[in-house]
């Protein structure tokens, strides 16, 4: 028996007879940790949460919480006996009760445990739902319903909290604030949480670990920095869409050569034989702008992101390269202008496939 707080071992997640995600294994070491599962829509993220909650069965592998097996080929503890709470993506508030009554139904469960780490008043203030307490679910917006549902799940003080796209209906302007508050509540009350989202920024902010689910598999399970900077497969790179893969040839244990960029130095994350042809990951922050450089490419697009610009450059070999520039940079470049890249090019972590 492992010491992990929560553990999934070799589980095939399925709905009916259709397998959605195969042979998944990951664990949460400590109580209070937050992990995020990322993946495109329809990939099976919700199925994973439903299965952990006991709403779907498994016939391969095992799921254990606090050392106790919840699901396996022969065991399936009923959802109501797991003390796992799932906040659904869609409105799952009881339609005939007010928001307050809905949340208090969650509190009823907590009363047994007399856990005071989550206080009703504090919770409704943090999630900014005090004004809708006496309304019925059909009278509130989707974002408010989602926050009310979140409050109901939190107040039960579950052993494991599962959040399915918890902020998908929350207004963008309000999202960051809620993310901060949510993280604070979860950390303060030490609620172990698995969050499913398709928003990588949300996952990187909230999760201490992130799992990437692609093509029916858990492709990578690592801390957010590594998932972003050290993706372990081309699929993960393509899914995160934060860089491009360009052809290069390994010239030494610490360098590569690309036809457009020339020599690139750095530390290989995974060693490749000298002379081998690889695909090198270039992320927007890997290259630096330098107006004085003689390595110049044509600007074909410019995206303003508030704190920065992302320029898309076209090389003579028709490769499109993204480059990050701080938005307070002394001047801006227009489309069709030439844009200089600082040489020599050095990338701390060289990721190749």
């Amino acid at each position, binding site marked *: 028996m492992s010491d992990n707080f929560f553990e999934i071992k070799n589980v095939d997640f399925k709905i009916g007879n259709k397998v959605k995600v195969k042979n998944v294994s990951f664990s949460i070491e400590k109580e209070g940790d937050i992990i995020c599962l990322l993946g495109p829509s329809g990939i099976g993220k919700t199925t994973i949460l*439903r299965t952990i*909650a*006991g*709403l779907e069965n498994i016939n391969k592998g095992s799921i254990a919480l606090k050392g106790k097996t919840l699901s396996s080929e022969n065991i399936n503890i*009923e*959802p*109501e*006996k*797991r*003390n*796992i*709470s*799932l906040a*659904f993506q*869609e*409105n*799952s*508030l*009881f*339609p*005939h009760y007010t928001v307050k009554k809905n949340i208090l*139904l*969650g509190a*009823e*469960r907590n009363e047994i445990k007399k856990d005071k780490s989550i206080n009703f008043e504090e919770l409704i203030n943090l999630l900014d739902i005090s004004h809708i307490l006496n309304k019925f679910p*059909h009278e509130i917006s989707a974002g408010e319903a989602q926050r009310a*549902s979140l409050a*109901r*799940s939190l107040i*039960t003080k579950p052993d494991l909290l599962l959040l399915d796209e918890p902020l998908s209906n929350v207004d963008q302007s309000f999202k960051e604030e809620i993310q901060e508050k949510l993280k604070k509540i979860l950390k303060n009350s030490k609620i172990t949480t698995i969050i499913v989202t398709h928003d990588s920024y949300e996952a990187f902010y909230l999760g201490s670990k992130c799992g990437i689910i692609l093509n029916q598999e858990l492709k990578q399970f690592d801390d957010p920095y590594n998932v972003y900077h050290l993706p372990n497969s081309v699929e993960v790179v393509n899914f995160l869409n934060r860089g491009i893969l360009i052809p290069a040839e390994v010239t030494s244990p610490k360098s590569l050569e690309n036809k457009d960029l020339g020599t690139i130095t750095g530390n290989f994350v995974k060693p490749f034989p000298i002379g081998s042809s690889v695909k090198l990951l270039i992320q927007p922050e890997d290259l630096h702008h330098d107006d004085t450089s003689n390595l110049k490419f044509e600007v074909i697009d410019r995206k303003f992101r508030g704190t920065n610009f992302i320029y898309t450059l076209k090389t003579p070999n028709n490769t499109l390269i993204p480059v990050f520039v701080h938005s307070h940079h002394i001047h801006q470049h227009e489309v069709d202008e030439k844009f200089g890249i600082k040489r020599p090019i050095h990338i701390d972590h060289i990721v190749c496939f």
Partner: protein
Amino acid sequence: MKFNSWFVSSFLISFIVLIPVITVFASFFETTSNYYEILKNTFLVEYIFNSLTLLLSVLLLTFIIGTGAAYLVSFYRFPGSEFFKWALILSFAVPPYIYAYSLTAFFENYGTAFTILKNLFGEANYNKNIPKFDGMFGAILSISFSLYAYVYILTRASFLYQSQNLIDLGKNLGFSRFKSFFKVILPAARPAIVAGLSLVAMETLAEFGAVDFFSINTLTTGIYNSWIYFDDLAFANRISFFLLLFIFSLFILENLSRRRAKYHFNSKGGLKQKVKIKLFGINAFLAFIFCFFIFFVSFLFPLSQMLYWTIKFPENLFDLEITNLVLNTLYLVLLSSLVLIIFSLISNYGNRVSNNKTLNFLSTLSISGYAIPGVILAIAFITFIAWFDDSIIKSFGFSSIKKIFIGSVFGLVLVYFIRFYSLAFNGIKSGYEKMNISVDESAYLLGYSKRKTFTNIHIPFLRNSLLFIIILISLEIIRELPITLILRPFNFETFATTAYISASEDLLEAAAVPSLFLILIASLFIIVTSKYILRENNE
């Protein structure tokens, strides 16, 4: 598939509902049957011709009245439009047979019309100038003015959900109001109109009281007469076979159009609330007259006629054992509602928690009972019980069970169950459809067991739906005639059967009192439920 209690109960319900259908179809394969001979040598051709004439005429009339009224109250504001919106469904309180009594009572020789003319203009022979609404024409009017509300309710609902954008689009294309109605509004409401007309068609083919009163030989009266006058259950079942073929074609048509209607009703996104156009002058007057005429003819006229006779012949009021009739009606209503609600809840809950395709299929079969005319249900039920008693029970040496099922409240409630199961089942189903399955799952995750979820979450949520269903069942049972007439215990009467018996004995004035009570009670139920029937939002 798991062989659990949901499966058993759903299977049992489907089996009970299918008994009459199986019985009728079994009669088709009897070796002695020679359908060509029956067709040639009996009145079957006449039955079919009359049924078709009645059907087509009623469909045409209900289409004009129902669609016209729905269009006016949905798109325009005119004096009384808010009142007519719900008042036009009061016609449901007047079953066709009571309408037939009123029509006859008013227009017959020396009837109410004659009395009015005499009081206004003095003694004269007015009888030859007063039109007679009897026979086929009387039956068509009686049924149409009672049933047009099906078309009215469904079409109005469809009109309400029609987007303002659609109407604006018509205007944008330069359509006149007239052209917009025929090119945009009416085609968009077509599935709802077809659904309404299919219901009218099924009810018309099943209609017994009014056609029997006007002595029209249709398939339904043919079934009843074969049994009552010729004591020929087998022949009654054979006619039923033809009628069922008709009905099932309509049933399929209705289901198909309802499925399409749903598509239209659900178009919520990006719709503007429709703005009703205010009518002035002659247009407002004409709209008012049209709606008032329908309301008057369909409801006020039969109500006043029955009221007039009740006052004119007060002795009938005292002759009638009203307390008994009320108690009998209450007894039937409560018992039937209870049984229907319990089984419908079990079946719906079973479907919800098991999400099993076989269960869903069985449920679909179970709701077909509403399409089968009451006369067929009652006679097929008697046939089945007689067969079961003779072939199964007696062969095991047990004593006869006929008395338990035929001429008993138990048998009556059982057949009501078959007839009205769809009402209860669909009512609860639509209630459940408003509650996402994740609500149940949330309850489980809050520590609720399945039983606690059912009692603490489902029942409170479905409370209004259940109340609505009980009232609808009550309304149907109060108006129901053929099943009650055929299967009721000896000396057990309802308002409907009392009215029918008096009318069939040519004692129309005696039929007025139970008819009046029936209309008043039914109206009360309709008023209570009108909020649900005519709801204008998606709640």
